[in-house]
Every structure is written in structure tokens, then in C-alpha cells.
């Protein structure tokens, strides 16, 4: 009987979605040729699709309800990756395998594949940067791409006007983005979370619109081309060489970023960020300077975006405002949310999945943004902690106090 009820509900919901999507999915008009196409099959797909999704969701909800209310850290602790990372020997082996794979990658695969991987690695770094802001400090920054743009245009303009090289500009771009972060952060970080999100979104759009409209400064929508590629000790590289070089550069960047972010989040500052995310008032009552701590997180995130902006400009040799839309911020946010806010391994995995998957499943690439949107919604509802929840806090300190006692 219950099954029949469920079935009936499923059918009703399917019908509702058929109705809901009817005008957009079924009818297609051509106002110029004045023809109407009725795509009835779409209604059928919709009905079947909704029914299947509904059944699956119900199934998972039921199953989750039946399994014990596991405490989150245990559940996450049993994940394969964390078990691998827990054991020092396995961890060392994993690192060796990863290092070999990373080094061999451009030798074994084509320039195109290497280039795609470089892009994915850039998103890893961007994701890790945003992770400091969103994941650790809990500040929803929807204008992250603005700092990316600052870095990219810093390199593009200084290279174009003064012929300055990549290595000179790299720190400049990062620092300038961090300065922008401080400038913006100073007034807005006292806002409540959701307002902060909207203000940063507004700021991101302002930067883009200024770049688009202020032609004398930024050459407007046509952008700046012929930006110098990164050089290797003054050597100019050919196209293939440059792609490979960029790739290794990004691998180093990723390692550097993981190292820094890992140390930050296990420090006094990192703990303060997480505490701030949990409860601002209690934080202040414990003597944490709310503003300063937030500002540091915000500008550190911006710094990484700035660095990546410079790398982006050097890699593509061309920048224009169209690369820095809100959607770019949304993609980076989706990476962090999918991977798991605050979790380094999660963000890396999130970036690789979201950037590589559409590349390799060509047929699906047009559904990319659709999927990103759906991911944001589904993750919030079904798994807000992300694919790989951050669990470092349960064991990192465990042995140390005992050691301290023993000594």
C-alpha cells in the first residue's frame, strides 16, 4: 500500500514537472519564420526523468534514515582518501605515485591534454584560494573573479606598456590583488554574511564593467593581446615548450599553495578563521579581532586570485573582460562547495572533477553550467560538508598533548 502511495506521489510530481517545463521544453517558436515546433518527446523525457530522480532521492533519503545517525567526523573519517592520508607509509606511496604521474603527464600526453591539465591546476589553486575565504573564514565571496582580473590586467598592461616580464609581475599582481582585497574588505567585512556576498558580487561586476567601458585604460571589450609568455631563465620557449613549461609551473604552484594553505589552517590564525565562521560573538569575547582576522583571510584569498590572474594572462597571452564574469566566480565557488568547504583534498578533487569532466565528456560540455548550478543546490541539500569533509581537527592535536605530558 505504501509503495502504491509512493508511486502515486511520484507520478503526480512527474506530471507537475511536465506541466512546469511545458512552455520552455516543448514549444519552440521561430518568430522570424513564424513557425512552431512541438517537441512532445521532451515532455516524455521530462516525465520519465523526474520520476527516476524522485525515486532515487526517496530511496537515498530512506536509506540515510535507516542507517544510524553517524557523527559526521566518523562518517567522513572512513573515506578512502582520508584513510590513505592517515597512514604515513601509504601517504608517502601516494605522494610518490602522484609526483611520478605529474612529472610524466606532459611527456606521455599531447600538448592539448597538457594545456587542459594546466587549466585544471589553475582552478585547483583558485579553489584553494577561495577556500581560505569561504571554507575557513566562512565569508561568501561572490566577486572572487575581480581579484583574478586585477592580476591578469596587471600583467597584461605592464607587459604591454613597459614590457615587464612575467616573473617581475607575478608578485606585483598578487600583492596588488591583495591590496584591492584590503581596500574592499575594510568597509564591507563588517556586513552580515548574505550582504557581504551581494556586495562582493557587485564589486566584481563593477571591475568587469569598468574594464569593458574604460577603453583608454583597458582597451575595452577587445582586450589586450600579445602578452609575453612566462620565460625560463630568460629563454624564449616555442609553443609546445611553453605549454609544458606552464604545466610544470602550475604543478609547482599547486604544491606551494597546498603547503601554505595547510600550514595556515593548522595555525593560530587558521583556528581563528574557523572559530569566526562558527560564532562571531563568541570569537570576539575570546579576544579575537574580528575585522583584522577577516581582512587577512579576504586579502590572502585575493592574493592567490591575483597570482593566478598573472599566470592566466601569461598562459593565454590574451585577456579581455569576458573572462571575468560572475559565472567564473560561480564556477570557483562550485569547486569549493563540491569538494568540501575547508578541505584541501576536497577542493583539489572538486576542481579536477568540474574542470576535467566537461573536457573529456565532450557531449556533456554544453551542460556544464547547468550541472554547476545543480551541484550547488544538491550539495547544499544532501551533503553540505562536500565530497570530502574537512576532518583534520579530530586527530592532528591528539598525540601532541600526550607527548607534552610525557616530556
Amino acid at each position, binding site marked *: 500500500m505504501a509503495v502504491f502511495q509512493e508511486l502515486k506521489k511520484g507520478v503526480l510530481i512527474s506530471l507537475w514537472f511536465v506541466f512546469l517545463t511545458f512552455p520552455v521544453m516543448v514549444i519552440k517558436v521561430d518568430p522570424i519564420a513564424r513557425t512552431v515546433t512541438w517537441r512532445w518527446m521532451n515532455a516524455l523525457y521530462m516525465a520519465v526523468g523526474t520520476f527516476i530522480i524522485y525515486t532515487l532521492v526517496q530511496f537515498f533519503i530512506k536509506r540515510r534514515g535507516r542507517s544510524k545517525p553517524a557523527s559526521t567526523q566518523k562518517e567522513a573519517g572512513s573515506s578512502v582518501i582520508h584513510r590513505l592520508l592517515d597512514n604515513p607509509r601509504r601517504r608517502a606511496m601516494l605522494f610518490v605515485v602522484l609526483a611520478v604521474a605529474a612529472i610524466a603527464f606532459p611527456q606521455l600526453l599531447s600538448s592539448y591534454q597538457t594545456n587542459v591539465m594546466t587549466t585544471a591546476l589553475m582552478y585547483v589553486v583558485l579553489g584553494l584560494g577561495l577556500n581560505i575565504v569561504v571554507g575557513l573564514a566562512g565569508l561568501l565571496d561572490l566577486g572572487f573573479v575581480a581579484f583574478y582580473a586585477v592580476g591578469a590586467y596587471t600583467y597584461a598592461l605592464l607587459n604591454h606598456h613597459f614590457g615587464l616580464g612575467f616573473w617581475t609581475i607575478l608578485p606585483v599582481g598578487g600583492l596588488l590583488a591583495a591590496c584591492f582585497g584590503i581596500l574592499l574588505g575594510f568597509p564591507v567585512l563588517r556586513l552580515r554574511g548574505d550582504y557581504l556576498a551581494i556586495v562582493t558580487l557587485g564589486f566584481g561586476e563593477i571591475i568587469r564593467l569598468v574594464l569593458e567601458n574604460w577603453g583608454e585604460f583597458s582597451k575595452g571589450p577587445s582586450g589586450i593581446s600579445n602578452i609575453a609568455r612566462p620565460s625560463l631563465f630568460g629563454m624564449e620557449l616555442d609553443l609546445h615548450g611553453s605549454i609544458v613549461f606552464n604545466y610544470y609551473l602550475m604543478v609547482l604552484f599547486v604544491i606551494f599553495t597546498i603547503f601554505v594553505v595547510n600550514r595556515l589552517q593548522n*595555525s*593560530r590564525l587558521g*583556528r581563528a578563521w574557523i572559530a569566526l565562521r562558527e560564532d562571531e560573538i563568541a570569537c570576539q569575547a575570546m579576544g579575537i579581532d574580528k575585522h583584522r582576522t577577516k581582512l587577512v583571510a579576504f586579502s590572502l584569498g585575493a592574493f592567490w586570485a591575483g597570482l593566478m590572474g598573472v599566470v592566466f594572462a601569461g598562459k593565454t597571452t590574451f585577456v579581455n573582460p569576458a573572462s571575468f564574469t560572475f559565472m567564473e566566480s560561480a564556477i570557483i565557488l562550485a569547486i569549493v562547495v563540491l569538494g568540501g568547504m575547508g578541505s584541501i583534498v576536497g577542493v583539489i578533487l572538486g576542481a579536477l572533477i568540474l574542470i576535467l569532466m566537461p573536457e573529456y565528456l565532450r557531449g556533456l560540455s554544453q551542460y556544464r553550467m547547468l550541472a554547476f548550478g545543480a551541484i550547488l543546490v544538491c550539495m547544499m541539500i544532501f551533503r553540505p560538508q562536500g565530497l570530502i569533509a574537512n576532518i583534520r581537527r579530530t586527530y592532528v592535536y*591528539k598525540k601532541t598533548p600526550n607527548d607534552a605530558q610525557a616530556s
Partner: protein
Amino acid sequence: MTSQPILEVSGLTMDFGGIRALNALDLDVASGEIVALIGPNGAGKTTFFNCITGIYTPTEGNVWLTPPGGKKVSLNGLKPNKVTERGLARTFQNIRLFSKMTVLENVMIGRHCRTKAFILGAILRDPRTRREEQDILETSYAMLEKVGLAEHCDEFAENLSYGAQRRLEIARALATEPLLLLLDEPAAGMNPQETIELEGLIKKISREGQAILLIEHDMKLVMSLSDRIFVMDYGRKIAQGTPREIRENPAVIKAYLGEEVDA
């Protein structure tokens, strides 16, 4: 207990719109003392805490803190984190722990204002930062042992029992090395057994020389712990004195039991 006062509050007034939540309140706490602030619900006790810890900015009045052997400093207009740095630490009536952090980490946050490491220190992990980190761990662990939560150090704070959460808040506040510890209804929601344990804990902390100002409704607890009691009603101080004096004070009886007793 005739030592010098640590905390002096004079003429503290707080208006919310047209409502006067605190009315020219005077209060002082001497070093090593346990002082209780009592009064019916809505008397303005928590508002008083919020005002002296910088969460609210009082309309009028002065708050001074005097470190033993040090100079008197004003707390007027300081942000909450600065107040904590100067030496006032508090717990919250409706527990405010960092629920997704471990018990130990919660206490470590309390060490924040007594330590320095920043971005570079965190990244480079130089010897000084490492020593500081070790010190944070040891001190925090010691605090947990003091309140009897050491064996729970790796659990998430949200998974602790109610009474344990209250004790964790005390440990966290103690980790800031306060001159004066402010406890906002530490026994609220505790069962009798937990309350007895809490009483023991507060006495232990007090014996170590810690000055304490507490808000509490449990009269038995207040009477057995306090050296002095301040009574508030409608934002005003209506009485002060030793537990015995307070118990016999007609104004206090009236505030608690209503007019009829008078008649």
C-alpha cells in the same frame, strides 16, 4: 577580603530606544572574591555583562579594571576583543561554543589573545611559533584537565553533554587568563548532580585566586558560593551585601516574591 577592587563600575546606564535597561548601576569586585549578581528575569543582568564586555556600548557610565599592582584602565568604548585582552572573560547564558571545532580547539581559541603568531609565522613555522603553538596546546590541555574534560579533548564541542558544554565554556574563558571571570548562569539547565560538580569547580577556581562575577538563578548555589551579592530589579541595583544580609533584605524579598509579602 579587603583587597583592592579589580573591577569598578559606576553609573552604568543603558537605553534601548525608550527603555532603560540599566539605570545608574554601581558595582565592584575585589581580587579573589566571588560576587554574584542576582535578580528576577529581565532585570538587566545579561545586559550588564554585555555592556561591560563591550558587546553593547553603554549610554552612560564608567567601567575600570585594575590589574593587581598595576594601573587602573578604563574599558569604556573598547571592542569586545580588547576588553578580553585587558582581562575580562565571560561565558554565555545560551552556550556559544564553536560547535564544529574540537573541545581542545575551543580552549585553544581562548589562548588567541595571549599569543602572537601571524601569517608568516604560520607559514614558516619558525622555532618561536612552534614553541608558542606547543605552549597553547599545553595550557589548553591543562585547562581541560582543570574542568575535567581532558578525556573528551578530541570530540566535537556540539557532541558534549549540556553540563560539559558549560564547563567547556568556563575552560575557554579561563584560557584567556582573565583578571575577572564572568559567568552568565553557569548552572542553568544542569541537573542537581552537575550543579554540585559545578559548585566544586567554581570553588576550586576561586581558591586559585581567580576573581569571579556570576549571574545565577540557583539561590542555593549563589548563597553557598558568594562572598558578596548584588541584587538588581528593573535595571536598578536594589541591594548589596553578604549572603546573610541579602537573605533578610525586605527589598529583595519584595522583588522576588511580589507585593503581598510586604502587607
